[in-house]
C-alpha cells in the first residue's frame, strides 16, 4: 500500500525501458503520466469538494443536502457539471471576446502548476524543486491576474467592483501569507517542500509556530476568497463579482478553480505545519499519502466550518485587519522565531 504509486511509476518506467525506447521519450512519457495522474486527482477532489461543501453546509444548517442523484446524492456534482456543460455560454456585448473566454481556461493554471511541486506522499512528488515554497508563493498569486481579467472584460460594473476587490485583497494578503511561511523556512532551513516535511519528523511546525499557522490560515481563507473574506463574490452586495456575466461552463470553471485553490492551500497548510505525509504516533501502517489526505481534509473542513459560521467583513475592515494586525504580527513572529532559533542553537553548542 505504502509505495503503490511509486511502484506503479517505477513499473511503467521499467516497461518502457525494456521496450528499448530512448531515455528522453521514457522521461517525457513518465512525466506526462504523472501530470495526468495529478490532474485526475485534483479534478476528482474538486468534484468531491463541491459535494462536500454542500453536505457540510447542509448539516450545519439542519438540512440533509443533496440526496437524490446516487447514494447520498454523491453524483450531484457530476449532474451539475453535465448541466453546466450543456448550457449556452453567453458573451455580453462590447466585451473583449478572446480575453473573456480565455479567463476561465487560465484560472486552472496557477493551482495546477503548483501541484507539480507538492509531495503527495513519501517519494511521491512530480518535481522535487529545491525552492518549492518560493515557487508556490510566486505562482499562486497569478490567479489574481486571471480574475481581474475576467472582471475587466465582462464589461459590467459589478464585475469591475469585484475585480478591484480581488486585486486589493489578494495582493494584501499575499504579504502575511508569505511572512507566516518565513517562520517555517527559518526553522527548517530549507525551501524544499519534502525537506520541510522531513524536518518535522520530531515535532510538527504547528507546535513551534502556532501564530504563523493562525496567520497562514486566515490569509489562506482570504487568498481563496472564502467567507469571512469572500468580498470578491460577496453575493449579497455585488452578485458574484467578476463572475457575474459568466454562464455555463465558464462559470463552472471559476467555481471549480476555487476548490482547486482550497485544496492547494490546505495541502500546503498540512505540509508546512501539520507534518505533511508524516504519520503521527508512529501509526506507519497507514500509507503516507492517506495521512496527507486526512490532514488536508481536516484543514478543508476547518475552512468550510468557518465559511458557514461567519458573516462577511467589509473591504476597509478587511484591509485594515491585514495591514494593521496580520502583517505586524507576522513580522513579530519572524523576529521571535529568529531570536529563539539563535538562542536554541547557542545553548546547544
Amino acid at each position, binding site marked *: 500500500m505504502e509505495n503503490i504509486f511509486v511502484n506503479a511509476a517505477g513499473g511503467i518506467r521499467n516497461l518502457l525501458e525494456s521496450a528499448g525506447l530512448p531515455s528522453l521519450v521514457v522521461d517525457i512519457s513518465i512525466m506526462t503520466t504523472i501530470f495526468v495522474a495529478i490532474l485526475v486527482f485534483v479534478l476528482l477532489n474538486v468534484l468531491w469538494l463541491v459535494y462536500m461543501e454542500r453536505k457540510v453546509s447542509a448539516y450545519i*444548517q*439542519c438540512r440533509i443536502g443533496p440526496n437524490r442523484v446516487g447514494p447520498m446524492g454523491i453524483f450531484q456534482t457530476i449532474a451539475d457539471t453535465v448541466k453546466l456543460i450543456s448550457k449556452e455560454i453567453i458573451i455580453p456585448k462590447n466585451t473583449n471576446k478572446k480575453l473573456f473566454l480565455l479567463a476561465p481556461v487560465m484560472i486552472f493554471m496557477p493551482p495546477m502548476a503548483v501541484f507539480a511541486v507538492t509531495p503527495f506522499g513519501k517519494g511521491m512528488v512530480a518535481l522535487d524543486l529545491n525552492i518549492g515554497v518560493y515557487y508556490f508563493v510566486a505562482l499562486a498569486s497569478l490567479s489574481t491576474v486571471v480574475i481581474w481579467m475576467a472582471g475587466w472584460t465582462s464589461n459590467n460594473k459589478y464585475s469591475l*467592483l469585484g475585480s478591484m476587490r480581488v486585486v486589493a485583497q489578494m495582493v494584501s494578503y499575499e504579504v502575511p501569507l508569505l511572512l507566516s511561511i518565513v517562520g517555517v523556512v527559518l526553522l527548517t532551513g530549507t525551501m524544499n517542500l519534502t525537506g520541510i516535511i522531513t524536518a518535522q519528523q520530531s515535532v510538527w511546525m504547528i507546535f513551534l509556530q502556532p501564530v504563523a499557522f493562525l496567520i497562514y490560515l486566515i490569509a489562506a481563507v482570504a487568498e481563496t476568497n472564502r467567507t469571512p473574506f469572500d468580498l470578491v463574490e460577496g453575493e*449579497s452586495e455585488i452578485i458574484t463579482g467578476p463572475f457575474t456575466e459568466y454562464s455555463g461552463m465558464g462559470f463552472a470553471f471559476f467555481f471549480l478553480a476555487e476548490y482547486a485553490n482550497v485544496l492547494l492551500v490546505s495541502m500546503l497548510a498540512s505540509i508546512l505545519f501539520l507534518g505533511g505525509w508524516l504519520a503521527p504516533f508512529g501509526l506507519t501502517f497507514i500509507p503516507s499519502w492517506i495521512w496527507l489526505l486526512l490532514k488536508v481534509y481536516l484543514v478543508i473542513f476547518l475552512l468550510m466550518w468557518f465559511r458557514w459560521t461567519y458573516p*462577511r467583513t467589509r473591504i476597509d475592515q478587511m484591509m485594515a485587519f491585514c495591514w494593521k494586525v496580520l502583517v505586524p504580527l507576522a513580522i513579530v513572529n519572524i523576529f521571535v522565531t529568529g531570536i529563539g532559533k539563535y538562542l536554541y542553537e547557542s545553548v546547544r553548542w
Partner: protein
Amino acid sequence: MKTQEMLINVGPQHPSTHGVFRVVLTLDGETVVKANSVPGYLHRGIEKILESRTYPQVLPYTDRLDYLAGLLMNWGYVNAMEELMDTEVPERAEHIRVIMGELQRIASHLVATAAYSGDVGGLTGFIYCFRDREDIMDMIEMVSGARLTPSYMRIGGVAADLPDGFLEKCQKFIDYLPTAIEEYNGLITGNEIFQHRTKKVAPITAERAINMSLSGPILRASGVNYDLRKARPYSIYDRFEFDVPLGSNGDCFDRFYLRVLEMTESARIIRQALDKLPDGPINAKVPKIIKPAVGEAYAEIESSKGIMGVYVVSDGSTKPYRIHFRRPSFINLGHFDELIQGWKIADVIAILGSFDIVLGEVDC
C-alpha cells in the same frame, strides 16, 4: 490622475434588495456619493382595486400588503373599520387577536433577523431563523388555513375560534423561543465580525427619526419611546405587562438587535394572553351587509415594521369610497437616500437590511 464617479444600478433584480426595490447609486470607488431610490416595481394599485370591493372583501387584499405580517395588516384594517362603525369587539376575540398578532410579529422579526444575517453574509443564521419561523407558520396555518395570507380577522371579531391543540402548541413554542434566541445571539449578534459590520454604521439621531416620521424598531433604536401598544393602547394592550426595548445609538446594530429583544417581549405578551384567554363569543354583532354611515376614520396599530395606519372614507354604500394605507416601510424608506450617503456599498445592503422593508407594503 483623474477619477470618475460611477453610476451603479442596484435592483430591481438584486439578491439583497428584499424584493424588487431599486436604488441608483453614484459611487466614488466604493463610497456612495448620491442615491436615488426608485420604488414601485410591485405597485398593484390595491387602493384603486379596493374602491370596487365591498368592505369584507377588502380583507384578503390587506394580506398582500406586508406579506410577512399578514395578520397585523388584517388587524390594521379591521381596527379602522371598527372605529368607523363603533363596534365593540368581544373579549375572546381581542385575546385571540393579541395572541395571533404577536405570533405574527415574532415571525416577521424572525424574517428580519434572518434576512439581515443573510445580508451581511452569514447564511446559516438565515436558515436557523427560518427553521423557527416555520413553527409559527404552522400555527397560523392551523388557525386560519393559510400560511402567509391568513385573512383571519373579521370586522368585529375573528373568522374562527382557535382549533384544538393550538394552545398547547403555542405554549410549547413560547417555551422554546428563549433557546432559539440564545442561538441567534451566539451565532449572529455576538459575532465580532457582525458587530464590526453593523455598529456605528448609519446612526440616526432621535430628532431626525421623529422628523422623518420613522416608526417601529427603527424609531425606537434611536431611543424614542414610541410604541403605539404603550403610547396609545389599542385593542387590549393596556392590560398586558411588557417593556418597550429601546436602542441608544440608532445604528444598524441597534435596529437589528431591537427586533431580537422585541421577540422576547412579544412572547411575554402571548404568555399573559394565553393565561387570561376568556370564553365567550368571537364575533361582535355586525350586520350581514356592512354599510357604515357616511364618514371617515383613521386608525393606527403598531405593526412589526412600524405604525400601520388605515384611513377609510365611507359614502354610505357597501363599498368604501377610499381606503388609504399608511405603510410603515414606505415612509421609513423616505429617509434611506439621505442616510446611505457617504457609506460603502456593502453598508448600503446592511442599512437596507436594517430597515426591514417588505416591497408588497412599500409599493402597495
